[in-house]
C-alpha cells in the first residue's frame, strides 16, 4: 500500500514534484492514477533530455541486465563449449544494444547546447 503521508511527502519533495501538486490532490485516492502519470511526465521533463529519452534509457538498462542474465544462464545451463560460447556472445550482443540505447538517450538536444 501507499506509505504514510510524511514519508510520501518527503519522497515527493525529493523528486521535486510535490510542490507542483496541491496536498489535497495527493490525498484523494481517485487521483492517484493522475498523480503517477503526472509524476512520470515531470521526471521526464526535469531530469532527462529529449522526448522519449526516459523510455530509451530504461529499455537500455533493461537490455544490459537481460544480456548479463543471458551470459550467466549460458554458463550455468549449457555444457557444450561451442553452444555456451555462442550464447555468451549473444548476451554480450544484447548488452551492446542496451549500451547503445543508453548512450543515445544521453545525447544532448541541440536546443540545450551552448
Amino acid at each position, binding site marked *: 500500500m501507499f506509505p504514510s503521508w510524511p514519508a510520501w511527502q518527503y519522497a515527493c519533495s525529493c523528486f521535486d514534484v510535490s510542490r507542483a501538486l496541491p496536498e489535497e490532490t495527493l490525498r484523494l485516492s481517485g487521483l492517484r492514477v493522475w498523480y503517477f502519470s503526472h509524476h512520470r511526465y515531470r521526471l521526464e521533463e526535469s531530469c532527462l533530455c529529449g522526448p522519449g529519452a526516459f523510455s530509451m534509457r530504461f529499455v537500455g538498462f533493461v537490455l*544490459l541486465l537481460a544480456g*548479463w542474465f543471458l*551470459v550467466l544462464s549460458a*554458463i550455468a545451463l549449457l555444457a557444450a563449449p561451442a553452444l555456451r560460447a555462442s550464447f555468451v556472445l549473444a548476451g*554480450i550482443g544484447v*548488452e551492446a544494444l542496451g549500451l547503445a540505447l543508453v548512450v543515445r538517450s*544521453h545525447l544532448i538536444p541541440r536546443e540545450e547546447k*551552448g
Partner: protein
Amino acid sequence: MPMPVPGLTETATVACLFFIFLVPLAAAGLSLINAGLGRSHSAAHIMMASLAALSTAGLVYFLCGFAWQGFIGRPGHSIIFSGVPWNWIAAEPFFFRGLTVDGSAASLAALLQMFSVGLAALIPLGSGADRWRLRASCASTALLAGWTYPLFAHWVWGGGWLAQLGANYGLGHGFIDAGGTSTIHALGGLTALSVTWILGPRRGKYSADGMAPAIPGHNGVFVLFGCLLALLGWFGLNSAGAILFTGSEPAHAVLIAINTMLAAAAGALTAAVITGIRFGKPDASLTANGWIGGLVASSASCAFVGPAEAVVIGSIAGAVVTFAVEWFEMRLEVDDPAGAISVHAIGGIWGILALGIFARFQGPVLNLVRDSLPMAAGGSASGQWLAQLAGVATLLGFVLPLTYGMNWVLNRFCAFRVPVEGERQGMDLYELGAGAYPEFVTHTEDFRPR
C-alpha cells in the same frame, strides 16, 4: 566448494607489505593528473575532493566494505543455481571484527583494499571536475566503497562466483585479475561514466552549432609528474595483488615490474606517435592518458604474460585510449575533462580481455582456488577467454546499471551539480572560499574593488 585459506611465507608477507605501501603513490598520481587536467579555478577543489574521497572510502570500507567483500576461504553466502553454489557476498562482521590483524593474507588484503577502494573512488573525480559538489562526491564515494566495489571485488578477489568459474564450470582458472584492472579501474571508469551522464557537460562545452571547443587542462607539469608517481604506485598494486590474489611468488615481482613498465612505456609512445601524426605535434595530455591506459591494461595480466606481450597490450591500450578520448568527447558528447572513462573503463576492459588472449599459465595454483584446475600446469587454460568475457559482461550488465541507478537516486537527494554561479566563479571560490593560486587572480569579476 570449501576452499583452503591461502597462507604466505614470511618473505612474501614482508614483500607484500612493502608493495602495499607503494600503492598510495598511485592515488597521489591520479589526484595530480585530475587536478592538472581541470581548470585553474577548480584546482584546490579537486585536490580537496581527492583527499575527501580517500578518507571517505577508507572509513566506509572499514565500516562495511570488507564485511561484504571478505577474502578467499572466509565465510560467504551462496545461492544454488543449477546445482552449483554461486558465492555472491561475504559474511564477515562489520568494523573488521572478524579479522585478525597479524600479517595474514586476509589482513594484508584488507589493508590493500583500503587503498585500492580509494583509488577507484578517485577515478570519477576526474570526470566530474569543475562541476561536481564536494559533499555529493563524498556521498557517491560512500556508495562505491560501501557497496559497489566490495560486491564486485568479492566476486573476483574474495572467492566469489566469477573467481570460481574455473572450478565450477571448467572455464580456465576462472576470472583472473591480478592487479585490479576490473575491480578498481573498470569499475571506477564505469562509475565515472554514470556520474558524467548525470552531471552533464560543463557550461560552454558544447555549442549549438555542434562544435565542442577544447577546454585545456591548466597544468601539464602536474599531469606528467602524476604519471611518474602513478608508475610507482602501480608497481606496488600489481605486485601485491598478484601475490595476494593469484598466489604469485615474491620473486615474480621482477617480471611484474618489467611488464608494468613496458606496458606504460608502449602506451605513452603509441599515444604520442598517433597524436603526432594526426595533429602535427605530440599531445602531452593524451600521451599521459596513454601512459595510464597502458598501466591499467597491464594490471590484470602482469603476472601471466611475457615482456613482448606486455608491449603489445600497452600499445593497443595507448591507441584505444587516444581514439576513445576523442570519441567520447566529440561523438558521444560525454564531457570528461580527465579522460578517465577512456583510460580506466575502456583501457580496463581491454586489459581484462587481453589476459584471455595472451596469458600463459606456469603453475597449478592460480586465482587461489586450489584443487580445482581442470588442466595440467603449464598449458593454456581453454575457456579462460570466456571467463574474462563473463567478467566484462558483469561489469557492463550489472555494475553499470547498479552504479548509475544508485548515483541517479543519490542525485535526487543530494544535488550533484554546482549552480551556474558556482561554475562561473570556479569551484575553489564557490565551495572552498579560497583559490589554489591567490597570487594569480584572473577572475576579477568575482571580487569587488576596494
